[in-house]
C-alpha cells in the first residue's frame, strides 16, 4: 500500500494525484477481511457523526467476551433456527461487511444464527425473537433467509446491557415478502452498533419498521439492494433520544434493477441536554435502474434546548429514465399554531403537547403492522414525554 504525503503535493507531481473521491455510494469498500477496513478516525464520511473516540474497543481485533442470546418461544411450521460456523455464515451473507465493526462481528461471532423461512410457506403468525446481550465486548452475526414466494413477519426485540457489534444479512428471494419489525429498548448504558445488509430478489417485498428508543449509543446502518426488478421496499423508523443518548440511523437504498420502488420514512424526537440523533439516507439510482420510483422523508421534533439533530438525505442518480426521485427533511419544534388551536379548544398545554407528539409519530407507528407492538410503543413514547415535561 502506498502512503500519500500531501505535504509534498506541490513538489512532486505524482503526489498531486492522491485522492479521488468515491464515484458513488456503491464504491465504498466491503470486505470480510478486517484488515481491509481500517480503524476509523471520525473524519470518514460514514463515521463523521459518530463519537468514534468512545468506541475504541469496538475496533480492536480481539475475541468476543460474550455472544447474544436468542430467546424463542416456538417456531411455526416452515420456520427454522439453526447455528452455523462463521465460514458458512460468510458464504450465506448477501454481501461482505461495509465497516470494521461488522467485519469484526462476523469474524468473532462464534456461531452465527440462521433464521430460515422455507420457500412458498406463508407464515400467518409473527415469528418473535427476543435478543439479549450482556458483556463489554459482544460480537454477533445472524442471517434471515426468506425462500422464494414465502411470506412472513419477523419481530426482533433487543434487550440487555451489552456493548455489542452486530452484522445481519437478510436475503429475500424472488417473489417473497418479509415484514420486519425491530424494536430496540436496551438499557441506558448499552452500546449497539449494527450493520444490516438486505438483498431483495425479483418481484419481492420488504416492509421494515425500526423503533430505536434505548441505549447510550446506537448506530443502525442498513443497506437495501434491489437485486431483481419490480421489487418494493418500505422502510419506516421511529426514534426518541433523551439526554446522553446518541441515536444514529443510516439507510442506503441501492436501485440497481429496473422498476423498483422505495419509500423511506424516519421520524424522531429529541429531548434534554446532549440528546443527539443522526439520520443519513442515501439513495443511488444506477444507470440500469430505469423506471425507479423513490422518496425519502426525515422529520425531527425538538422538544427542548440543547439537542442536536443531523439530517442528511443524499440522492445520486445516474439515469434520467425514472418515474420520480425526491426527498424531504424537516427539523423543528412544536407547531405553535397547532398548539394554539388545541389550547383554544380548552385542552391543557400538557395534553396538547402529548397530542401533537402522538400525531407526529402516528403514521409511522401504524405501519408496524403488529397492534400489540404499536400500542406498547405509543405508551413508551408518551412515558418518555412525561419525563420531558418535568
Amino acid at each position, binding site marked *: 500500500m502506498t502512503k500519500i504525503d*500531501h*505535504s*509534498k*503535493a*506541490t*513538489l512532486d*507531481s505524482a503526489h*498531486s*494525484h*492522491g*485522492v*479521488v*473521491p468515491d464515484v458513488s455510494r456503491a464504491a465504498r469498500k466491503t470486505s470480510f477481511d478486517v484488515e481491509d477496513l481500517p480503524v476509523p478516525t471520525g473524519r470518514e*464520511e460514514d463515521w463523521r457523526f459518530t463519537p468514534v473516540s468512545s468506541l475504541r474497543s469496538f475496533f480492536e481485533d480481539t475475541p468476543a467476551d460474550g455472544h447474544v442470546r436468542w430467546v424463542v418461544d416456538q417456531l411455526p411450521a416452515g420456520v427454522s433456527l439453526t447455528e452455523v460456523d462463521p465460514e458458512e455464515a460468510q458464504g450465506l451473507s448477501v454481501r461482505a461487511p461495509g465497516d470494521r465493526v461488522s467485519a469484526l462481528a462476523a469474524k468473532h461471532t462464534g456461531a452465527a444464527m440462521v433464521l430460515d423461512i422455507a420457500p412458498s410457506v406463508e407464515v400467518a403468525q409473527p415469528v418473535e425473537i427476543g435478543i439479549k446481550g450482556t458483556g463489554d465486548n459482544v460480537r454477533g452475526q445472524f442471517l434471515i433467509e426468506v425462500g422464494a414466494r414465502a411470506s412472513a413477519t419477523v419481530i426482533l426485540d433487543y434487550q440487555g446491557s451489552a456493548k455489542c457489534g452486530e452484522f445481519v444479512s437478510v436475503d429475500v428471494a424472488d417473489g417473497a415478502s418479509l415484514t420486519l419489525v425491530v424494536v430496540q429498548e436496551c438499557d441506558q448504558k448499552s452500546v449497539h452498533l449494527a450493520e444490516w445488509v438486505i438483498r431483495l430478489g425479483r418481484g419481492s417485498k420488504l416492509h421494515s419498521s425500526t423503533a430505536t428508543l434505548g441505549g447510550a449509543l446506537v448506530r443502525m446502518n442498513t443497506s437495501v439492494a434491489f437485486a431483481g426488478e419490480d421489487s418494493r421496499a418500505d422502510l419506516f423508523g421511529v426514534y426518541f433520544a433523551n439526554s446522553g443518548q446518541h441515536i444514529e440511523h443510516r439507510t442506503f437504498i441501492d436501485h440497481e434493477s429496473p422498476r423498483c420502488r422505495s419509500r423511506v420514512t424516519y421520524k424522531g424526537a429529541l429531548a434534554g441536554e446532549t440528546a443527539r440523533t443522526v439520520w443519513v439516507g442515501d439513495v443511488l439510482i444506477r*444507470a440500469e435502474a*430505469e423506471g425507479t420510483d423513490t422518496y425519502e422523508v426525515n422529520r*425531527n421534533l*425538538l*422538544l*427542548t*434546548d*440543547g*439537542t*442536536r*439533530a*443531523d*439530517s*442528511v*438525505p*443524499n*440522492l*445520486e*442518480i*445516474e*439515469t*434520467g*429514465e*425514472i418515474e*420520480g*426521485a*425526491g*426527498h*424531504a*427533511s*424537516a*427539523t*423543528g*419544534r412544536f407547531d405553535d399554531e397547532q398548539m394554539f388551536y388545541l389550547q383554544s379548544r380548552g385542552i391543557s398545554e400538557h395534553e396538547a403537547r402529548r397530542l401533537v407528539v402522538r400525531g407526529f409519530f402516528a403514521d409511522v407507528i401504524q405501519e408496524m403492522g403488529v397492534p400489540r407492538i404499536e400500542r406498547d410503543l405509543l405508551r413508551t413514547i408518551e412515558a418518555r414525554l412525561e419525563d420531558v415535561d418535568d
Partner: protein
Amino acid sequence: MSTSPGGTPLTQDEAIASIGTYAYGWHDSDAAGLSAERGLSEDVVRRISALKDEPEWMLARRLKGLDLFRKKPMPPWGADLSGIDFDTIKYFVRSTEKQATSWDDLPEDIRNTYDRLGIPEAEKQRLVAGVAAQYESEVVYHQIRDDLEEKGVIFLDTDTGLREHPEIFEEYFGSVIPVGDNKFAALNTAVWSGGSFIYVPPGVSVDIPLQAYFRINTENMGQFERTLIIADEDSYVHYVEGCTAPVYSTDSLHSAVVEIIVKKNARVRYTTVQNWSTNVYNLVTKRATAGEGATMEWIDGNIGSKVTMKYPAIYLLGEHARGETLSVAFAGEGQHQDAGAKMVHAAPHTSSSIVSKSVSRGGGRTSYRGLVQILEGAHGSRSNVLCDALLVDQISRSDTYPYVDVREDDVSMGHEATVSKLSEDQLFYLMSRGIEEKEAMAMIVRGFIEPIARELPMEYALELNRLIELQMEGAVG
C-alpha cells in the same frame, strides 16, 4: 509576440479551430510578459509580493498560505481533482506593466478581447457603474464613475486597494476566510493577484450594479483573484462578476477567494454567471458574514468549466440577519458541477433560504452539496432549502447531498428535493403546437430555471438563456 511560453506559435485560426461550440472561444495571441515560469515555490511567492511592492505582513500571509497549502490534503469528497497538475500551472502572469486609465491606453489585442465581450457598449449605455477588467491575473483597466467616488465608494482592483487603503485591508483581509480554511483558499492566499476591492460607506446605496469581467488567456494559467467587499452599516451594493475563458487543450485552474462583510442593516447582492471553458477546474471559496438586520444574497450560475466546486456561504452573526442563495447549474458532456450553499445560523431570529436548480445532459453530472447549521442560541431561526434537478437523458447524473445540523429547539428547518426527467407530456404538447423538438426542449429548460434567471440583471439573463440554448444543442436525438 505571437509565441506561447512553450515555444509553440498559436495562431488565432488554430485557436478558433479548437474551440467547438464554446460561445466566447477565441483568444488573443499570448503576449503575457512574466508568464514563463510554471510551478509553485517559495521563490515564486516572494517574487509576486516583491513585484507588487507589498507590505511585510502580506508577504508573511502569503508564505503562511503556501505552507498550509502544502500541508492540507486534497478534499476526499466532491469532484475528481486528480487531473490537476500543480507543477504545470503558472501562478503569476502580468500582461502590462501599469494600469491603463482609458480604453485607448490598452494594448490592441486586449482591447479586441473586451470589444468582443461588449464592454465599451455596456459602458456607453451606462449599464455598469465601473469596470474593473481583469486580464491575465492583473487588472489593466479601471474606471469608476465620478458620483460613486464622491459618495466615498471605493471600487478598485485588489492590488491597488492594498496599496491605497492598507488600514481597511489589514483589518478585513482573511477575516472571513482564514488562510488555512481549505487547501485552495490557502493556495489563493499564497499567490493571489487581482480581484475587486469594494468599500461602501455607511448609509450609501449604490443603485447600479458594479461589474467586473474576467478572462484567462494564457494556456495553463491559473487565475487566483481575491475579492474583498465591505458594506458598512445601512449601505447597499450589487456586485456582478462574470467569467468567460477561451478553450485550451490542457487543464487550467481557477481558484478565487471572495470575502464579504455585510454590516448592520446593510445589504449585499453578489451575482456570478460562470462560463469557464470546459477544461477549467473552478475551485472557489466564497463566504460572507451578515451582521444585525443585514441581508446577504448570492446569485450563482454555473454553466461552464470542467469541474466546479463552489459553495457560497453566509454566516448569520447578528440578530435578524438574512441569507439567501439562488443557484443554477448546468452540466453537459464531461462536466461536473459540484455546487451548493452553506448557511450558518449563529444568532437568534436569523433566516435563510436556498433554492438550487440544476440541469444535466449528455452525461454531465450536477451535485448539490449544502450545509445548514443552526447553532445553539440561534433560537427563532428559520431555514428552507429547495433543490430541483432536471435530467434530460438516460446517461446524465444528478446528486443531492444536503447536510442539516440543528442544535436549537426553537427553530424551523425544511429541505426538499425533486429530481425529474424532462416531461414527455410537455414536450408532446409543445411539439403538437408546431414547435420543433429542439426549441421545445430549450423552452422547458428555460422555464425550469426561470425563477433564478429573473433575479439576474437583464443582460445576464439574456446571456444565460443564450448559453442554455447552446448547451442544449445536440440534446435531441
